[in-house]
């Protein structure tokens, strides 16, 4: 999916661990960009993904330490983006986060965007938001039993706020409507060179049920689902992972959170495994979102299933090129999306 060229920038320092290097450079960033701070502590790597690293640390301050998050390119690499990149890049993501934060949606507050002088690569520092992100826990843990019935409506309200974000001052984002997104998906599918009659059926169906362009294109999150949201006992406290943000049809976000993989086994609660579609739509409309056309919402749900299926099937070249077992197993999950698509298109109808 990504075609970025990367150059390592943590530098040659064989005697020190990546954690020590990051801690040392964060201390300088704290001194220069966080007035009144006394340095950093507890610098810990949370994840190391293929497209970014996430670190947590405490900013030491006289009036109490503040937990912060560093999101940066792996190893502090400098990543050149190309026209075929599907994700937006960390600097753009930081700008979007600031706009959405100003619009009143729950997102971490961006505290600093890295500069080349910081020596940490590309990325940004944001507030740490405490809570749970694991989808299986959100749908099953008794801790969320009380708030769970309110979550779908709350997701609708949050999406309305995200979609209302003014984009005049936004960084350049890709415009991608239904037609462009289908075309991208079709080319990813055809690149797999493996016949999937159910996917073919879904492509035909999508082509025949394509909604008209939205009255006004909106800022679309692009990956708004259970798993990319932080929850606590009061509900959704932050929306994460903005790397697929684009300008397009807002209904895409309302469909994606209903696709079956994000229900974490709770099939009869289409919205993230915790609520009903009507609750999501009512919350969305009540908070000022455009009226939800049910047929269009279904279109985006079908699109979401196909999108995830093509993504799984697209793992095969990476599986063959590497040494991971996991990628092969993910590729074999494409069939899960085929059963979801059959239920949507040739079953009893939507749950």
């Amino acid at each position, binding site marked *: 999916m990504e075609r970025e060229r990367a150059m390592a920038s943590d530098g040659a320092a064989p005697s020190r661990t990546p954690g020590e290097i990051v801690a040392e450079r964060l201390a300088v960033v704290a001194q220069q960009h966080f007035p009144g701070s006394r340095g950093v502590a507890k610098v810990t790597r949370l994840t190391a993904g293929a497209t970014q690293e996430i670190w947590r640390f405490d900013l030491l301050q006289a009036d109490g330490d503040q937990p912060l998050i560093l999101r940066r390119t792996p190893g502090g690499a400098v990543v050149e983006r190309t026209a075929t990149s599907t994700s937006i890049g960390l600097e753009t993501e930081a700008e979007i986060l600031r706009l959405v934060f100003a619009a009143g949606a729950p997102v971490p507050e961006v505290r600093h965007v890295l500069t080349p002088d910081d020596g940490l690569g590309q990325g940004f520092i944001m507030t740490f938001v405490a809570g749970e992100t694991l989808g299986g826990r959100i749908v099953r843990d008794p801790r969320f039993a009380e708030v769970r019935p309110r979550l779908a409506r709350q997701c609708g309200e949050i999406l309305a706020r995200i979609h209302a974000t003014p984009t005049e001052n936004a960084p350049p984002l890709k415009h991608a409507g239904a037609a462009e997104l289908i075309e991208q998906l079709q080319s990813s599918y055809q690149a797999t060179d493996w016949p999937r009659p159910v996917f073919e059926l879904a492509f035909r169906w999508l082509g025949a049920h394509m909604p008209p362009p939205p009255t006004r294109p909106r800022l679309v999150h692009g990956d708004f689902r259970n798993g990319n949201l932080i929850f606590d006992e009061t509900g959704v406290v932050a929306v994460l992972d903005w790397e697929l943000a684009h300008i397009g049809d807002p209904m895409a976000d309302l469909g994606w959170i209903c696709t079956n993989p994000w229900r974490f086994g709770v099939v009869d609660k289409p919205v993230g495994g915790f609520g009903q579609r009507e609750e999501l739509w009512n919350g969305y409309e009540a908070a000022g979102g455009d009226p939800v056309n049910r047929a269009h919402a279904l279109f985006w749900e079908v699109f979401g299933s196909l999108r995830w299926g093509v993504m799984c099937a697209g793992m095969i070249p990476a599986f063959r090129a590497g040494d991971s077992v996991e990628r092969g197993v993910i590729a*074999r999950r494409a069939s899960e999306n085929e059963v979801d698509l059959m239920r949507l298109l040739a079953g009893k109808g939507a749950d």
Partner: protein
Amino acid sequence: MQDEPRADEILTRVANFLKGPATRESGPHISFQLRVAANAVEICQRQLTLAPKAEAEELARLRALLLADGDLPTLNRELAMRIRAGELTLETPGLADHLWATTLAKLAVDQPNYSGYRAALAERGGQ
């Protein structure tokens, strides 16, 4: 027809992992990879026991549906092309039944615990 990667590719990869990182390293990362490897072996085990019969039935259905002869990969590609061209649709007698049977057979091998598969079995009365 069971999709790629093929069972032999998966098993080769699992064996390399067991001979390599799994013997040298430990910790949560390896524990996770070991569970993935066990899952992968189980997929291959189910494929060995279930796929031959399922694929023979799939081939017979395809020959009847397409009125054509050929092996499973060829006819499956042909089916995909005819659906893409709009020559076969869900209204075509036999197509929905064929796709349901094929999809459920694939899931019985790939992920028999998948929620959507369990729901489909329940909705379709255990077909």
